[in-house]
Every structure is written in C-alpha cells, then in structure tokens.
C-alpha cells in the first residue's frame, strides 16, 4: 500500500470514529486538536486500524504514538 492510500484510509477511520465527515487530518494532527481524542478513543482508533490494514499491533508498537504522523509511519512500517 502506498503512502497516499494509507493516509486516505486513516483519514476515513478518523472521520468514522469521530463522526465528522469533514474532518481533515495532517501528519501533525494530535489529541490536542480533536476534542474527543482521549486515551479511550486512541484504543478505538488503533483497533479500527488493525482491522482495516489486517494487522496486530504489538505492545511496543503502540507506545509513544504522539500524532497522526506516528500512526502513519507505524502502519507503513508494518505493511511494507
């Protein structure tokens, strides 16, 4: 999967999870920027991404994820 398709799929997940069809994310988007993005929602985002990209994150994978860029890098690494 190329970077652009991963980005678009992640954007779709964010829109679904936060129930906001107009949400535009960037690599810098972080929990501060989206009101409902708390630790609980972080888990849901990761669960949705596991499903979407057919992955199982390891414990070490999900530590220190600060923003959308970190998430994209992780998915790119695991799907490479």
């Amino acid at each position, binding site marked *: 999967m190329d970077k652009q398709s991963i980005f678009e799929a992640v954007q779709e997940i964010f829109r679904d999870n936060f*129930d906001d069809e107009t949400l535009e994310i960037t690599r810098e988007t972080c929990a501060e920027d989206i009101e409902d993005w708390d630790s609980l929602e972080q888990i849901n985002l990761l669960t*949705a991404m596991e499903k979407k990209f057919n992955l199982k994150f390891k*414990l070490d994978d999900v530590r220190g994820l600060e923003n959308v860029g970190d998430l994209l890098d992780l998915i790119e690494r695991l799907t490479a």
Partner: protein
Amino acid sequence: MYPFDYPLDPAYILQKKRSLKRTLLQKDGLIEKKVAIMSGSTIGEIKNILELFLLENGIKPTFFEGSYGLFYENLVFDDGSLKAFAPDIIYIHTSVRNIKLWPEIGDDAQQIDAKLNAEFARFEQAIQAALSFGCQVICNNFDLPVYRVMGNREGVNSHGRVRFVRRLNEKMANFAENTLNFYLNDLAYLQAIYGMDQFSSQTAWYAYKYAVSIDCIPYLCQSVANIIKSLLGKNKKALALDLDNTLWGGIIGDDGVEGIVLGNETPTGMAYTEFQSYLKELSKLGILLNVCSKNEENIALTGFDRADSVLKRDDFLCFKANWEPKSQNIAAMAKEINILPDSFVFMDDNPAEREIVRQELPGVTIPELTAPEAYIAAIDRSGYFEVTTLSEDDKKRASMYKQNLERAQLEQTFGDYNDYLKSLAMKCEIGHFDMPHAERITQLINKTNQFNLTTRRYTAAEVESLIEHPDYITLFGRLTDKFGDNGLVTALIGHIQGDVLHIDLWIMSCRTFKRRLEHAMFDQLVACAAKAGIQKIVGHYYPTAKNLLVRDFYATIGFEQVAEDEQGNLTFEFTGFADYAPQCGVMEIEIV
C-alpha cells in the same frame, strides 16, 4: 443490514458508535434508567457500547462509573455518591483478572477450600452491598484463565486455576439462583463462544487493562443489555415462522409431504429437526409460536403430521398459511393474540419477505437467515427471549393464550356480550400486595404497556416496600374461568394524602381485556378507600406510544376529567362514594 441484529458487526458498532447513538436517541418512548458500572478492569468503552445496546432496546441510560478496579471498595464503602445516584441497575464488571488468592502447589485441601471461600466471600459481599441499594444487580461470572501451567491437569487437580475458577463459578451460580434481584452475566460462556484467544487478548489487558478485547466489547454489552431489557419487560414474546425452507427443507406444495427435508437421516434434515426442537424448548418457556407462511393451509398442516416433525399443530397458537402479505398476517396475529407487533420475531429464509415485513411493520424484529445450520444461532445469540425470572405464569403462558382464542370463538356464538361473560364462569381473587405475589407483580408492572395508565415502573424492592404500608392501598387481581387460570393479571397502587387517594399505577395484562376485570378492581378499590375514610380518588393518564387504549378509561367508570396539560397528560377525579353501585357483576369475587 442493521448492525444490532444477528450477526452482530462489532467493528462497525465500535467505529460508528457516535452516529449510531445520534440515530438511536431519536427513537420514541425511550425509558430512562440509572445504571452504575462498577469496575474490575477498564470500563470506558463498555459504558459507551452498553449505552447503544440499551438505546436499541428502548432504554435511555444515565451512567455512574466506578473507579478503576475498585468495584469492591466502591460498593462496600460507598462514599455516598452511589447512594445519591440511586441506581436502578448495578453492573459489576469483574473477571478472572480480579481473583487474588490462587491455590499454590503445596497447599493442602483445607487451604485451597479456605482460599475458595475467601474469594467467593469477597464477591458475595460486594454483590450484597450492591443489592442493599434496592436495585437489580448484575455481575459477571469468571472467564477461564488464558494459560494452564499443568496443561489439561489444570482442570482436574484442585491446585489448578482452571479447576479453581470452575468451582468458584459453581458457587456464584448457586448464589444467583437463590438470591432475588441478582443476575449473573455468563462471561465464561461468552469467552467460549468467541474463543479465548480472541475474547481475552493479553494485549488488551497489558496495554489498556481491558479484561475483554476491544473488538469483543459489543458481545459483552449485548449480553448485559439483554439481561437489563429482560428485567424491564422488553423481551420479545412471539415468533412468526415461515414453513418452507425455514421449519423444513423444500417446498411442501411442490415436493409433497414425503419430499420435504426433515429428520435425522440427512445432514440438512438434522439441522431443521434440531431447529424445531429448539423452538419446542422455547415454547415451554412461554414463547408463543405462530406460523406465517405462503401455502395452502391443508397442505401445510400435513408437514406437522410427519412422525419425524418435532413440532405439531398444537405447538402453534396462530396458524396463518395463506396467500395474504405476511405483514398483514403478522398484524392480524398480533391483534388476535392481543400483543403488539413489536413483540414479534419474524423468521423467514426469503430475503424479499423479510424486507417487506421490515418496511410495513418496522417494530418487528427480523434476523438474517442464511442456512438452516445457522437458524438456531440467529435466535439464540440475539437474546430476544433472555430469561431473567421464570414464573409459573411464564410456563403456562402459551396455554393461556390458546384458551383466549377459544374464548374468542365462544364469544362469536353469543348475541349479548354480558351473557358471554357470564358463560365464562369467571372467578376473581383480589388481595393486597404480599410477599408471595411480589415477584409476579413486579414483572407485570415492568412489562405491561397497553392497559397502563401511568407507565410507572417499580423495582422489586419498591414493590416490596409497599406491602402493608399504611399510606398505600395496593390491590392485585387473579382471574380464573372455565377455560383455565389466567394468573395474576392486574395490579393497582394508590397513595393516601389526607382524605385523597392518588392512583399511582393501574395495570392489566392484555390477555384479560374486556372481561370487566378492571371494574371488579375498581369496585374493590372504592370499598377499600371508603373504609379508609377517603373522600376523593384522583387518577392520572400519561400518554405513551402504547397506552392510547386507556386514555378515556377513567371517564367510563365514573371519574370526571379535571385537567389536561400540553403533553396530553390527563387528570381525573372520582367522588361518587355515596351512591356507588358495583360495576362488574359478571364474575364471582373472592377477597384474599
């Protein structure tokens, strides 16, 4: 496809929870309930998803969230916040992760028993503390541990954790069986259905302290919501069943009675036969089975004459084998049985038939059916008929409805309705609320929707608190006639303020409509009120989507309407004590 019907789509529910909630909140007639979730592990997402399943069942919850992992402390040493919240339901979300004292190699039998008893006592104490809030309490039993040091021996040797958990679960089951208002959520069974490796993921535990994997939370919440909706009288009551390729394989009109697939000789036949056995078991719990099939009736009936047909004609209440649209047949059955179309689950292998009924009767529940080997799961996994309490009346319900249809046939032979009523040889027992009847009264209060003037719901504890209360007049009525015993079918609660009696609740089961039983109850209420020195009885009608039937009821028995507000709530007053003439007159009354 609808995400809450079988088969559930957990990923969709988790991801779309916000938009699902928005849609569900628009449903009519939601009843509000206060639900406290006590934590043995993380409950955040459990709360969100449980909310969806409750809304789906017409229940709008407000939540109290216990502190992380402190279910015992929050319940046993409540700081006042839980009491102030006044929960209707407490759900204690515990799991195998909350067991502290495990047997160790080297412990003797006594030490192991002592640990078992100590563990059980801790949970029992938390549950008793929860019950002391006067609400219904749900607690998980224990899922199995995810590893086995001894392998298979772990389930045999008393030092094994698997054995220990199973023993603990047996104690929990005994406790639940013998404790009013306490219900077990079978976490162990859920774990078995969805598989331990999926259901109890180590990652979810280590990373987020979730005892149940995120993607299995919808299954957990469905299970808990099923218990809650059952307690609130929101179970389904009846099945409308197609015949061809639903109760047997093939088309009886084309293939003939010998050509249909049924019986244990073929794999597909086995699937249909076991499905029929499952339905037969359901009917023993009081679930009403009905046929709704496009067929010639006389040909359809021959299918049940086959020796290998588990179900017989007698197992069905209504038998609609004709060429009318199925939505009309279901609506007609609902009317004949006198239940709402919402109480039906419709099973049909034909997607087009399902779709038509879905469009025409949106209240009817319609699971997707794929292949006969999956039919049982389509009902069983959905929990439409979740049993929380099983009263004697439940077991007799199917025969009671059958008697009702016989009464309806008799009615047609009488010109005068009073003559018909008298011919029924009715006997009515009326009494004040007491302990032996409290459970059935609570059940009736929480599931009666049509003849229900105020639609106030009461917990078991609230009902019990009214027994022999000096400020309340309570009445229940049981009706018997020549066709059989209808059971306890009506109840009334009034509270006394000075010389005025306010009727807080008046309900009657739909199976005894039009029998003048409500008049018998009122005759008795007037007598009790007069004895208590009451000068005026005040009755209220609060409209809901389902109780239009009784909007004018008070006006028909001698009340005068004195007020109506913009919500359509009506207030009535009765003062006619002096010249009151009993209104029933068609049955023998016994005061018990």
